[in-house]
């Protein structure tokens, strides 16, 4: 069976699994990384949103064989460590996670790791484009929340974009 090697949350991991198994299942079922959630398996609900080389993507729609040895995968578990300690918040977390706590966003919490990963990527993207975050940017977020926490998600992203 092919050996798959890549960087996951700062550590190099190797796992024996066929190339076509989507990364989400490699993370969840084989490596025990449970932050990325299953919500649809077809890249529409975005509950599994994670980062590849710092950009948001959905591992449910990427065969593990497409992940190269040098690719860095970051899940919610590894998000705080993408920043030096002094840039983390009072709970030792990424500023976006801290904003989420401050606004008490989560209800059931199932989609929230994906929401936070998407929010971080959105803020970075808007910055790359040299713009200020707008309400229209928030409207483009495709992550679904069936508890309907959208109001607080919007507040938290605005706050997180100021602090990150």
């Amino acid at each position, binding site marked *: 069976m092919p050996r798959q090697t890549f960087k996951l949350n700062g550590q190099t991991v190797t796992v024996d*699994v*066929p190339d*076509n*198994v*989507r990364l989400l*299942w*490699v993370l969840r*079922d*084989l490596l*025990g990384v*449970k*932050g*990325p*959630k*299953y*919500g*649809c*398996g*077809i*890249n529409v*609900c975005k*509950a599994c949103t994670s980062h*590849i080389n710092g*950009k948001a*993507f*959905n*591992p449910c*729609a*990427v065969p593990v064989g*497409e992940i190269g040895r040098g690719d860095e995968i970051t899940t*919610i*578990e590894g998000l705080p460590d993408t920043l030096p300690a002094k840039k983390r918040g009072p709970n030792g*977390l990424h500023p976006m*996670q801290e904003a*989420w*706590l401050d606004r*008490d*966003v*989560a*209800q*059931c*919490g*199932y*989609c*929230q*790791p994906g929401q936070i990963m998407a929010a971080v990527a*959105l803020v970075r*993207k808007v910055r790359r484009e040299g713009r200020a975050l707008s309400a229209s940017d*928030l*409207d483009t977020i495709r*992550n*679904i929340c*069936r*508890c*309907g*926490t*959208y*109001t*607080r998600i*919007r507040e938290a992203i605005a706050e997180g974009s100021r602090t990150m």
Partner: protein
Amino acid sequence: MAAIPRHDQQDQPDQTLGGHDRPDPVGPLPTGGPHSVGRRRFLGYVLGGATLMAAADLGMLAEPAAAAVPTLPQPAELYDLNDALTDSCRPTANLITVTVNEDGTASFALPRSENGQGVTTSTAMIIAEELDLPLSKVEVTLAPARPELLLNQLTGASNTTISTYTPIRVAAAIAKMALLEAAAIQLGDTVELLKSKDGVITAPDGSSVTYGELATKAASLVDREVEVELKSTDEFTVVGTPRNRVDALAAVTGAKEFATDLDVPGALPTMLCRPPTLNGTPKRVLNQQQVEGMPGVRNVALVDTGVAVRALTFGQCIDAVRALDVEWNDGPVAGMDDEDILANLRKAEVPLPSLGLNPLAKTIEADFAFYFRSNSPMDTNSAVADVRSDRATVWAGLKSPIVAQQRIAEALGMAEGQVTVNVVQGGGSFGRRLFFDGALEAAKVSQAMGEPVKLMWHRADDARAGRTHPMCTSRIRATYLAGQVLSFQQSHTSVETDYRHGLGEVLTARAADLPAGLGNQGFAQTVFGLTQEIPYDFGVVTQTLVEADERFNTGSMRNIYSPDVRVAAELVIDQLAAAMRKDPYRFRQEFIRNERVRAVLDKVATVGNWGRSMPAGTAQGIAIHKEYKGASACLVELDARPGTVDRDIRDAVTGPRVTKVVFAIDVGLAINPRGLEAQMQGGINDGIALALTSSLHLRDGHFLEGSWDNYFYTRQWNTPPEVEVIVMPSESGQPGGAGEAGVAAANAAVACAFARATRTNPTYFPINHKDPLAFTPKPFSPPIPQSPVNGLRFTY
């Protein structure tokens, strides 16, 4: 936790017991009424054990819920669904115990289910308050199925806090009293002079001792009965203050565990291949051996709901499910469409009775249809099951775990005692987890395979074969004359709502005691009668329910009948106002007969600047709702102009946009206003989806919607940019329900705003149901779609 001997538990009724067979709980006490704020002395127990355990004796707390003589006849006004649930809980709720641990924390296993509604947080707050302990030192877990609790383990109808508030307080207060008594010995002072704060007891001389140090000293060798006085509400420093969720940190770090996150040895990923028509059944598998030989696949087994596969990863389950070649029997609605089901409902409708009112009265008649909707949460029906020859263990998000335990035992051919059912936090419920479809199926599959399984429904399964809010119609006839409304008749006709999860049993337990002859009606009639109310002075008011057609997988979707009933009623109220040449807000204000409803209505009208001038194609809408001991009102602004409706967003229904919402809620005592606000915000998004975008389409015997790109729940591009929730101050010392209270008024206000903005009278909901499909249906065979492989093309 050890079983606790209880004097009033000697004749524990069995599960099938009707109310009239059960000894009545202790009758009214000399002090206090149903909503007494003043009553604060209660009996309870310090329980024998190694560390301090305190319990409330709910038998002694019992007070009848309905005491006042009603002035008007609508049943929900004097005795609502929550009274029925609370009363049915009384004889067993006394098994509620709070434990103080040697590390200074307090722990409590809540016999309810947490699915995001915030009951673990509000419960921890109640304990922290009464025990004078920091919130962070209270640990609330979810109790497994405890048959000794009998019926008191159902999470539904927003009843958790209503029914558990006082017993939890009593148990915590008794624990604090025992700590104070132990501290008095230790510190050589009298209890009265000691002060407890933040888990430390301090004497006047400054000496102190912590709860942790006292936990074993305060323990009792034997159970002893004690009397305790609860804090008065003016002393509250935790309850009533906005607090963040106790599980927030776990949620934002990915550490919060749901059923599919559990690691149970050997419980490999498992999925089902389901029939192409709704509720079809498998005949036989034609290629079992071939599928068993696929990469990662370990087992294939036929069960009554489909063909199960167990593999090393869910990805390999998906491959195997798609490869299975199965012969199926058709389900009961094979070949049928929405409109066939609607035609059946129309046949079941009963004519509104003639009231023989003044012949000069004018009449408004209206007729609405509400299509099937999905209560599928983000976390699909999932469960872990480990079934052995002599015992079974199941883990799942369950709102009726005792009934689940009974049914699973029955299906496995085991005694109830051989089945352990653990309650896991659910990733949303919206009524879905009142049922245990995933848990029951997981147990059957585990038994058939002889292996532990981690069963997960694919999203397509959850969307198409999961529970739905039933299709229904609502007809209204209202008459008016000379500035008065003489009558308001509403008749609701619905595909059957399934209550077989045990809510029915709870109600049965009290059926004989229900007022107004409700005891003779069926469960649906009872729930309808106990939840619905028209809080307006409209002369002769009737609301009736007819249920027909039991072929669908239905359930009590968040707020059950109320969203549809309110939409129909509030739209007609706008029509009445227009016919009588009155402003919709002023009209409501004039006819409302409940002060709490009037207060929330006035609040949203003022804060939301009702009546402000708005451009053509946009409008405000206003509506109210009264239920679950609470009153709510909602004002929305909606933009139905083409530029908004026709926004181009990939795989989306944009539609009219609600641009602003002002929502006022009076639940009585709001334990955690911040959590209550969150529940209202969520309910608002539900209401918007129900009115504008989300429904299931039945075509040729199956629901077309297979995922979130087909079923259009509110998304960021639909959600209101401006939302203000006002939690009303309340004199009441009693909490009301929160989990569902946001949906009905929001749904109705959006419907009213849409009607006003478009100058139409919508007759079906959601308003886009008959538009051309906004998606291409995914295939039904194989029943689940393959995961894409192009994910790296969409990075950002």
